């Protein structure tokens, strides 16, 4: 497998789960896996996703395009703009009903907690120049947004220079719940024995993104491992999988579907799982995380 050609093809556009682009990526992956010499099975599943609709921040007569965060409730908030540098509770005091603008997206845990207990009207985060430069989910966002009163969006950072604290604004965030189809790809080395080692990577990307490092390069690692292990004589079976619906609402959807479907085998036969998520960044450092002993 030529890594450059593989990544160029798989990351030729967004691979948002439930779209034709994911289907194209899946077909390409199936061909690559078959070319390595394995029989691959597609396991389809449906999932609910929150699809962004027309959303904007209106200040005076000017409308700025915004993108609802993954778990943002649809809604409309009117209030004063308030720029803040930190989301600690001291900074949020006195901002009830305001549209808070936070020109970043890195949060300490305590800041999430203070957001949860605040009475702000909505939040606009601006991590970068593009709308999608923000994580689509975290545990904290989900908890906070599902409290049902917060409208949360991202905005391109360049727009912030045109907006001032104290200006009256309207923040409109609209998303639509849709039932979409995605799939996991599953294949194995077919060795007998009583145990399976699981190795997996998600293949989808966030909306508006090519997902090169997250996770086209991760899938490239997965397939390369598959190629390398094909030459080895292992005692244990190795089960490989690529997961869909990792990046959308109901995060890590594909892996949860996989576990639900194969839980008996995973519990009985699985001594170890290896997850590959975010790879290939030129200036990055390798690390392996292990929460188990």
């Amino acid at each position, binding site marked *: 497998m030529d890594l450059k050609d593989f990544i160029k093809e798989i990351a030729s556009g967004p691979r948002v789960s439930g779209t034709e682009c994911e289907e194209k990526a899946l077909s390409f992956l199936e061909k690559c896996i078959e070319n390595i010499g394995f029989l691959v099975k597609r396991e389809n599943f449906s999932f609910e996703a929150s699809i962004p609709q027309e959303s904007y921040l209106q200040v005076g007569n000017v409308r700025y395009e915004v993108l609802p965060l993954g778990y943002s409730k649809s809604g409309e908030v009117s209030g004063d703009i308030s720029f803040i540098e930190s989301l600690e509770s001291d900074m949020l005091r006195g901002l009830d009903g305001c549209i808070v603008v936070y020109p970043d997206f890195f949060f300490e845990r305590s800041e999430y907690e203070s957001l949860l207990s605040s009475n702000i009207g909505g939040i606009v985060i601006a991590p970068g120049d593009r709308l*999608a430069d923000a994580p689509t989910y975290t545990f904290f966002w989900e908890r906070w947004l*599902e409290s049902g009163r917060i409208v949360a969006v991202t905005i391109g950072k360049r727009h912030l220079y045109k907006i001032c604290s104290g200006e009256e604004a309207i923040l409109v965030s609209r998303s639509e719940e849709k039932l979409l189809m995605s799939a996991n790809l599953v294949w194995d080395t077919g060795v007998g024995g009583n145990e399976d080692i*699981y190795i997996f990577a998600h293949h989808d990307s966030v909306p508006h993104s090519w997902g*090169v490092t997250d996770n086209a390069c991760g899938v490239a690692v997965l397939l390369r*491992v598959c190629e390398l292990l094909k030459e080895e004589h292992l005692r244990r079976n190795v089960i490989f999988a690529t997961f869909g619906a990792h990046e959308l609402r109901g995060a890590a959807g594909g*892996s949860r579907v996989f576990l639900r479907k194969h839980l008996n085998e995973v519990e009985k036969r699985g001594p170890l799982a290896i997850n590959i998520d975010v790879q290939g960044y030129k200036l990055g450092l390798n*690390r*392996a995380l292990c929460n*188990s002993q």
Partner: protein
Amino acid sequence: MKYPISVNVRSAEVLDSFFFERYLPTISFQRTGYYNHSCLGNTLEVIDYESIERTSRAIKELVLEIDKKKIEKRINKKILREMNKYLEFDICDL
């Protein structure tokens, strides 16, 4: 192994491994560094192909090493409890 593995590192985000960790020991391989979903981390120019090859070989080595041994499944319940505090859904909630 030449590849450093940090044990007991908590992940704040929903990695797929989080769900697997409930049932069996799970290792997540990541390459860190500042990146955005649609900017820095998402053009072909930012890729270090060598790192992909090295990580692939490291995982292969790990699998070969594991394959020779008997593995005792031990889940770190304390860390799982801590992480579960922030988890609002489970594998059945899709």
